[in-house]
């Protein structure tokens, strides 16, 4: 009889086991720090590994997801408990980091390594520092687009020959996508997106779907982070890239320590490491730009100072984001 009751017991038992498992995994001899990042795991994990190699008594537990997901999660944590559950964070959204700093949620730390970082990428008080900068380039499928026919600049993208060929990250759900929309609005105004809207672009959530769409040639032109393009090209996918003539959009990834973390000492060591030579070498090996002034950039690419960028006001972007999203939806509907 009572198979149902037995089922219940079984379920409870399994759940308890699950609970124990998740707890036992979190308790060990060494110090463990919680690391929230928006940088894809193939790039953030090697850094954490290198750090643990150099500091065997500190283990780094990573949570990695898209910009909007990570920020949404941190907001909820702060709302529920008054502080972040993350001890350290590495986030590609300067406006959010600045806001966290203004709210007093970040630990000010004068790392001895800070002096080696380009002044443009660090907070004078040491509350946050960008050890890495991603650049947005135009990526295209070499299967579908001849090198001569590829767009040369941002404004080329509005050319009618790219009708039905373009893909963008949906700014409604993607932080990177939103920054790109704002950057073009700041540079060209809304006519840029009105021109794009006429070409019926595909809007996907986040970079995942986008890269695959370009690689497969279904939507052969899109804009993408340099490290994603480098990764695809290294895997011999049929793609290539163009640095837009007006300049690329720079997206610094800021590292910061959450104020009130119980693991402050370990967090500081990680901070030092992220802007250290060791850290920069890992970044270079992975084809990413670092911000140290005393080391060259990744192999085969211009030094970071020579990459032409378009000016972009992140604070204005953060202020106007809700209005931008609404206008963007209307423009795309026309």
């Amino acid at each position, binding site marked *: *009889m*009572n*198979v*149902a009751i037995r089922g*219940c017991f079984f*379920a*409870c038992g*399994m*759940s308890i086991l*699950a*609970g124990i498992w*998740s707890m036992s995994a979190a308790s060990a001899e060494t110090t463990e720090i*919680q*690391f929230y990042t928006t940088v*894809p*795991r*193939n*790039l953030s994990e090697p850094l954490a590994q290198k750090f643990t190699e150099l500091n065997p008594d500190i283990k780094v*537990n990573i*949570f990695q*997801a898209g910009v*909007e997901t990570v920020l*949404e*999660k941190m*907001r*909820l*944590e702060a709302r*529920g*408990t008054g502080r972040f*559950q993350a001890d350290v964070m590495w986030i590609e959204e300067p406006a959010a980091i600045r806001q966290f700093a203004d709210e007093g949620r970040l630990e000010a730390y004068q790392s001895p390594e800070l002096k080696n970082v380009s002044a443009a990428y660090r907070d004078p008080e040491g509350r946050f520092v960008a050890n890495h900068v991603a650049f947005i380039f135009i990526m295209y*499928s070499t299967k*579908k687009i001849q090198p001569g026919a590829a767009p040369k600049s941002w404004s080329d993208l509005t050319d009618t020959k790219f009708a*039905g*060929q373009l893909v963008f990250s*949906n700014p*409604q*759900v993607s*932080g990177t996508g939103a920054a790109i929309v704002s950057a073009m609005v700041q540079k060209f105004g809304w006519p840029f997106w009105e021109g794009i809207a006429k070409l019926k672009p*595909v*809007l*996907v*959530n*986040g970079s*995942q*779907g986008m*890269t*695959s*769409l370009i*690689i*497969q040639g*279904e*939507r052969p032109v899109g804009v993408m982070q340099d490290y994603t393009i480098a990764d695809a090209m290294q895997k*011999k*996918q*049929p*793609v290539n890239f163009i640095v837009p003539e007006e300049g690329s959009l720079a997206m610094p990834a800021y590292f910061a320590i959450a104020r009130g973390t119980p693991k402050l000492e370990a967090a500081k060591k990680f901070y030092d490491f992220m802007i250290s030579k060791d850290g920069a070498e890992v970044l270079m090996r992975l084809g990413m730009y670092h911000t140290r002034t005393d080391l060259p950039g990744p192999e085969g690419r211009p030094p970071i100072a020579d990459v032409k960028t378009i000016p972009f006001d992140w604070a204005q972007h953060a202020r106007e984001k*809700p209005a931008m999203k609404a206008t963007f*939806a*209307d423009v795309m*509907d026309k």
Partner: protein
Amino acid sequence: MTIRPHSVAASSVCLLSAALVLLPIAWLFVGPSVESGTLNLDFLTAVFEQRRLLHALTNTLQASFATAVCATIVGVMLAFLVVRTDIPFRKTISLLTVGSFVTSSYLQAFAYVLLLGPNAGVLNVALMRLFHLEEAPFDIYSFWGYIFVASLEAVPLVFMTTVSALRTLDGSLENSARILGASAWRIVFTISLPLVAPAIGAGALLAFISTLSLYGAPAILGIRVVPTEIQGLLGFPARFDLAAGVSLYLMGPALLGLLLYQKLMSRSGRFVTVTGRWGPPEPFRLGALRWPTCLLGFSFVVVAVLLPYSVLGYASLSKAAGAVPSLDNLTLDNYAFILRDSLTLRGLGNSVIASLGAALVATALACVIAFVEVRQRERPAVRALGALLMLPFGIPSVVIAIGLILAFIRPPLVLYGTLWIIGLAYLIKFLPIAIRTLAAVFSQIDSSLEEASRIVGASPTTTFVRISIPLVWSSMVTATVLVFIPCFRELGASIILATPFNETAAFAMITAWGAVSFEVTCAIGVVMLAITLVAQMLFARVRPAAAFG
């Protein structure tokens, strides 16, 4: 006849479940008021200031309705072929149809972009060459493209609920009609299908409501629906209040559908087919038509499983999915990566545990709830309970997850950061599937069997456990499978509830897409399908300890 839920157990199960559902939802709406200290109802009116949200709402309703209609037609047809005819490969069709339910909405949609994309879709290109067409015949980036993909995802819901009802059908009615000389078609449309109407209705309702909250496919296809809008509102700077408000308006149509269903089912006794004189129905013998009909049944499997998984499977075995196909491009590295990758392995383990736990608890709770709901359906409180418990299915799971975080991130009960909170989210979100599946079957069982048990002196609890449960056993297994699979693929809640160590398989899969490669993502998708197929075969072996009849 009434078996009152006077046993404390039944009422407490119902109350507990109601509390479970109310908790996260209540936090969403009461939260702003609690935190600001004043009554804050801005979110109710704020929605109407946003024109695009209303536009998204109309889109969502149209798509969900069309999807429910398509999925019901296909699902019922498949269920009938599998249960009531003698076509070959019935078990395979059933296994793969249900298995297709595990395909992540993202992957299913993306596979169809690769197949039916207007520029480079494999099928489009092939059709253009074959028929010398100027333009691609299909465009997946369209409203109908979205409905097509959404229907593929909803068919298993209708299929499973209908199958479980058809299996418990009483054969005597069909036999009478046969003896009286009715044709097979006439028997099907005037007897068999009308008799399982509660189950078909339940399946259609589930299909409708689940499409209301679908996120993955519209996100990939760029269709503007409420769940994608909600996701947009949660970005930085987040508008949790608006997101909660929009979800509330999404609950409206879900409730409306449920009330309509309850109204249809209220003429009690109309669908009772399992009585004391129980005999299994005879399958329809199709003779020479067996093979052509089998092909018809397989056509869904081809569209929902074989085509997408041939694209995804090929990618999972490629070094570079976009490269020109060649032997040099083939590799097993993507699968080897899974075996080396601690995040993916942990994710698979966590997903199995959380999904199985949620599915078993959901089935156990649903047994009691569905029984009370069917046997006491005239009581307003019971109807209200039924409606309340249905709500989470129509709410995007990310919204449920936000409510859960706010409820369980601080003392007295801190579950945030554990696997418990993920299991809880699954339970809340997918309990309605189990309830609807079992309620449909309970409404087919004549209460005379329970009365007989009571007459010989058994207590209500004994009657429930020894008579009612064995009668619906196969549907309990169905319910467990139907809850397990969507939990296993669930992403919206899993991603926002994830912290280091409680990540799930779907989370590992989607982060691999952005970070490792599309090829590895496909490999994880294929492994998830394989696990689901094995789980189904294991579930099918579970038999009641005390066999009935």
